[in-house]
């Protein structure tokens, strides 16, 4: 009886340790993934391509700056109809600046300023560990499966299922869900390449969504470089001058 009790206690302790270790691993994996995906402060060029079911496509080019965990700005360089528009994100706050309007207006993370499958939160994505808690982590043959829960209701997706490559600790696919459990979209990373300064990460992100049957959006990354930036760059009054930093 005494032996059985001891065995139960040991089993309980082992289960607790195992669970804690997994939770800790999940957090560590996510933070390392964030570190590998983007430096603390950087500039980057991105091309967004919306592909329609009939094969036609439309392209947008953005210049992006990020600093710290929650400051990001994206300036449209092309096409001409969008040139000069800029979106700013400070934590959960997002604004859109339209040159003709001349002042920034608040926008919501679920809106899309470019149409297609990508929304504003995809374009102004912060570190995953800033927006999500690790709810669970599972080890598979070549991958980790992370179950992520949004920290607040202001985050665009309620929870994510993220498949992480074990060898590189980079994301492979991310399923994005609404609070109702509905799959909103799937993000797929590919084409890992070196961006300089030891930064090795995917250079292509594809997405499709059951809400946009037949449509696809692709994001190509280029010119990712570390850059020192003043905090004042990430303010509403600076949005009309972002181009000067290129």
């Amino acid at each position, binding site marked *: 009886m005494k032996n059985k009790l001891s065995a139960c206690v040991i089993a309980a302790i082992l289960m607790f340790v195992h669970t804690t270790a997994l939770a800790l691993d999940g957090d560590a994996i996510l933070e390392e993934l964030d570190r590998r995906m983007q430096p603390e402060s950087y500039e980057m060029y991105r091309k967004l391509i919306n592909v329609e079911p009939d094969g036609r496509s439309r392209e947008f080019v953005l210049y992006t700056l990020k600093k710290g965990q929650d400051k990001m700005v994206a300036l449209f360089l092309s096409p*001409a109809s969008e040139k000069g528009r800029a979106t700013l994100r400070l934590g959960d706050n997002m604004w859109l600046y339209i040159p003709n309007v001349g002042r920034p207006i608040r926008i919501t993370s679920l809106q899309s300023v470019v149409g297609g499958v990508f929304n504003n939160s995809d374009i102004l994505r912060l570190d995953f560990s800033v927006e999500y808690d690790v709810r669970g982590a599972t080890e598979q043959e070549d991958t980790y499966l992370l179950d992520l829960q949004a920290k607040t209701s202001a985050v665009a997706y309620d929870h994510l299922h993220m498949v992480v490559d074990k060898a590189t600790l980079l994301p492979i696919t991310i399923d994005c869900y609404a609070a109702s459990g509905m799959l909103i979209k799937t993000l797929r990373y590919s084409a890992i390449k070196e961006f300089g300064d030891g930064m090795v990460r995917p250079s292509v992100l594809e997405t499709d969504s059951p809400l946009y049957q037949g449509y696809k959006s692709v994001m190509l990354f280029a010119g990712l470089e570390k850059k020192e930036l003043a905090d004042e760059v990430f303010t509403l009054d600076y949005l009309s001058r972002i181009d*000067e930093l290129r």
Partner: protein
Amino acid sequence: MNCASKGDGRNGRKGRKGRWHAFLTLFLVAVVVPGSSWALEDFVFDVEAFARKPLNLGGFAEMKWEHMDVRRDSVFSRLFFNDDPPTVFDQLTASLQLNGSYTRGIARFSWLLYGSVRENTLGWSDRADVYESNLTLSPSPELTASLGKKSYQWGKGYAWNPAGFINRGKDPNNPEEAREGYITADLEAIRSFSGDLRTVSLTAVVLPVCADVNEDFGDRDNVNLAARLYLLYRDTDIDGIVFSGNSRSTRFGGTFSRNIRSNFAIHGEIAHVPRLNKPTVDQNGGLSRATISATSYLLGVRYLSSFDLTTILEYYHNGAGYSPAEMERFYHLIDNRGVQLSDTGATDLQRDLRQMAAADFTRPNAGQDYLYARLSQKEPLAILYSNAALIAIVNLGDGSYSLTPELTYSGITNWELQMRFSVLNGGALSEYGEKQNRNKLEFRLRYFF
């Protein structure tokens, strides 16, 4: 081969049919197949093509056709058409907007030019304006100074900005169009922090009014000052705005905006003018001026539904506006043939008063209480890059309104096509019931470059 080409009609048809098949197959192979089975390798990103250049140019060219059914018996028809209004009013406008900048070191010279030619029922007209032209110096991200003609867009309201004391008046039907600026000198300082207070910025503007400089702003030979203090505090945008000068009376304002959820935002403005000189029409139909204390405010929400319907709602109280009774007295004044604006028997003072009154009473939304609603459905019927919207402006005082369905398509890169049909309605002697047109059909084609 020769047989086919020289053969009987059946063979000829067969030959033509074969060629059509070959052409169709080639077309499918060349156009449809590569398009529908795309591969990632098809996409290239030459980042060097987007390297920054000192000279930056852009703009758009536009053609707009408008057709209006004129409400011939309305007060405004008689006012604008000198008592002989046409039945319909057609207008074709070609316009060009050019913007650009040249940057060297910390200095940037930027400009925004607008020109249009217009042919309508009344004849031909053209205009060319410099909307903006200014030199900006940015010695650091925290400090900016500019000198020249510049447009200010202070305030958070979508359709109206009661606290935008140095803004050029906004057309609630086209709030996103560029507007002409004023000649000013300004200084802007920004500081960022960590904690509840994230950003503080202060903008100070000097706006002179003298001969040929900002004459349409207010009384001449004055130097006016305006300042705006902006805070991002606990995820809320907050502005404090003040204007002081003799061209217009001193005024104070405040604005705020905040996201409540990821799909819901609120905003508001308040403006107070302690001493406002306001033209009025008295009980006897005489024109006079009164000094009043006016407080205006605006409250608005912006909501995005799960099916991509964006709703913007704004309530606007215009403290400097006219009550339905005051508007009625003005309409009676215009209606009274003895005091038409075109009459030449009046004294200079009376004529001036009438012109001032006409400018005040006929400006967009001169009443006291308004509701603005814009329901905008992104990509209706799953048509990518299209937008369908319904815009309503209601004068809550007299119940008159304008209702505008709008369709926009921008599926061809750098082209935008917009179609609108506005209905203006209301009872006799109401704001929209007395507008010169019953409706307006509008087609607009815009090419960006």
